[in-house]
């Protein structure tokens, strides 16, 4: 005899769905962890079995040991890991934040005001394809060799995606919303502020994420300009003294910090754009 199907109340149904969702999230998170661990395991086995030469690629365990050592030992680059991380954070965050502060308003204004777009776009299109590294010789002359010079190189790599995404985001504003606002008598600036900017935020956040990646990617180049500490500098010194383990440690730390920043950005994005998910 079939058992009668249990009927869920609304509260139970919600709890059941939430539970399923939690399980699914947990499962996906575990998959990510297994993916990372699997990657390190394959790497470790490849080095331990001699498939990859330790001379050219240090094992994850060796990198971890070096990480512990570098927390207190400044050799061979002359600075402990913490100092290097702080120096790099200072450079990359200065350039990155400047790119956001200047790039996003510029992109939004260019995307909204046609006249401003016609005025700025040709200059932007000329600057856009220039590789950030090619600014190095001029940067030395213009800005010297201090923080501002290195931040300028990082700024250029982060600035372009900020402008482009903000520009594209605001261009994609739903014309129906604009027309409704116009019908209600809103001024162009009010529509820009209350409809254009919120509509562009998804694309803008995507641009900020790309900009963050670019900022970290340009770090080594910026620290090639001049440095006495920093993760890029540490990598260069690893090359200078034939220490691939130092190079890999620098790369891994850059990767981890980049991942942390992306996670923080995702949280900020969820907070700011929470209304879009309703």
């Amino acid at each position: 005899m079939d058992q009668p199907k249990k009927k869920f109340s609304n509260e139970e149904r919600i709890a059941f769905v939430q539970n399923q969702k939690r399980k699914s999230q947990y499962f996906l998170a575990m998959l990510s962890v297994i993916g990372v661990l699997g990657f390190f395991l394959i790497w470790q086995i490849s080095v331990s079995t001699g498939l990859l030469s330790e001379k050219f690629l240090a094992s994850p365990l060796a990198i971890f040991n070096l990480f512990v050592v570098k927390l207190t030992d400044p050799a061979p680059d002359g600075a402990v890991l913490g100092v290097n991380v702080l120096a790099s954070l200072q450079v990359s965050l200065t350039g990155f934040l400047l790119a956001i502060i200047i790039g996003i308003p510029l992109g939004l204004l260019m995307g909204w005001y046609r006249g401003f777009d016609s005025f700025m776009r040709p200059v932007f299109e000329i600057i856009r394809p220039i590789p950030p590294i090619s600014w190095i010789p001029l940067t030395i002359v213009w800005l010297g060799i201090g923080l501002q010079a290195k931040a300028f190189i990082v700024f250029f790599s982060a600035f372009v995606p900020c402008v482009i995404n903000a520009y594209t985001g605001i261009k994609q504003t739903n014309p129906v919303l604009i027309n409704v606002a116009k019908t209600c008598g809103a001024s162009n600036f009010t529509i820009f502020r209350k409809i254009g900017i919120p509509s562009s935020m998804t694309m803008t956040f995507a641009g900020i994420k790309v900009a963050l990646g670019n900022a970290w990617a340009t770090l080594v180049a910026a620290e090639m300009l001049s440095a006495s500490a920093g993760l890029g500098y540490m990598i260069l010194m690893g090359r200078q003294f034939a220490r691939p383990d130092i190079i890999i440690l620098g790369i891994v730390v850059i990767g981890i910090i980049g991942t942390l920043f992306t996670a923080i950005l995702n949280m900020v994005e969820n907070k700011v754009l929470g209304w879009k998910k309703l």
Partner: protein
Amino acid sequence: MKRKLLSALLILTLCTSLLSGCGQAQNSSEATSGEKSSTGGKTTFGIEPFKDTQTLRVGYFAGSALSIPFYIADKEGFFKELNIEVDYQTFTNGPAMMEANADWDIAGAGSAGVLVGQIGHDTPMLGIADYEDNQGLFVRKDSKIAQDPTNPDNWKGTTWLYPVGTTAHFTLATQLEKLGLSMSDIKSVNMDVSSALNAFNGGQGDGLAVWNAFACNAEDQGYVRISDAGKLGITNTSGLVSTREALKDKRELLTKTWAVFYKTVDWINASEENKNKAIAYYKDSCDEEGIKVDESLAKRIMDYFKCPSFDKSIELMTKTVEDPKGLYTKRPLLQAENDLLVTMDFFVKQGKYKAEDRVKLLDDGLIDPSIAKEAKALMESAAK
């Protein structure tokens, strides 16, 4: 008709570009002494030519005098008469050259580059290419250091621009040590030599440590040379390096190249006329690499060039002495090993290399005298 004309024009353009392409190898073996036979006639140094053409891949250090014997031997036809074609791979810094060791058979590099190659890439040194004295320390005329370089207080807290981990670093540290100071008494900013000079011109830093053409350029721009490797008595050894693969597969080619390299040094020093030719060749090689050098600068750089003669090079690679520091007791050391260890010991002291690296250098025979010995035998048989 139009189509035929267009086709003919296209074919003509293609042929022209192919022909001009063939003629554009700037650094190819273009002998200036074309009379010499490459198939059996007497060669300049009496070395027997190869029957078949051999390609020698040279890791060439642009703008540095230590590589110039390769270029001169090529231009004077010393390689061509032996049926050796030279293929240049140009670099501007030692570590990059060593990383790309799969692309060359023999190369010349400064001591820091040689050490990176030995420790990180297993590339043995075959001989000494130069004792680089032109590693200069520069300050501005109005600086306190220029007024009294012997006062340590004038040095304390100053900012120096130089490539960290190179012989410029070694020179600066030696100068500081002489004054009773250490590297921690100054602020170091890591920059490659051309950027460092550029920044110094832009008013950055209090001091500059650079080498070769950049050092002479700094001098020409009115900066005061406080000291250099020569004045400080630093044994700053540049080396000829090779790869294990080339040592295994191209031994005869390396032996003849080694002999030609040092015999070319003897040729340079044989007469004033040859010295002047060498200066012109150095300028040509810099022009080809886009490095700004005038005749006066080329002359000064070649005056600093102190590559040992053929006989002296043999002696450096065969004569043995005990390790003066008493750190290595397994066997007596070659003079060339002792010379290179001066730089190695500095980097070990600075925490850049480990003491085990010093032992590895000697245990693994990374200063290899075998080619020098074979070159000696080759020249002895050529003399008979």
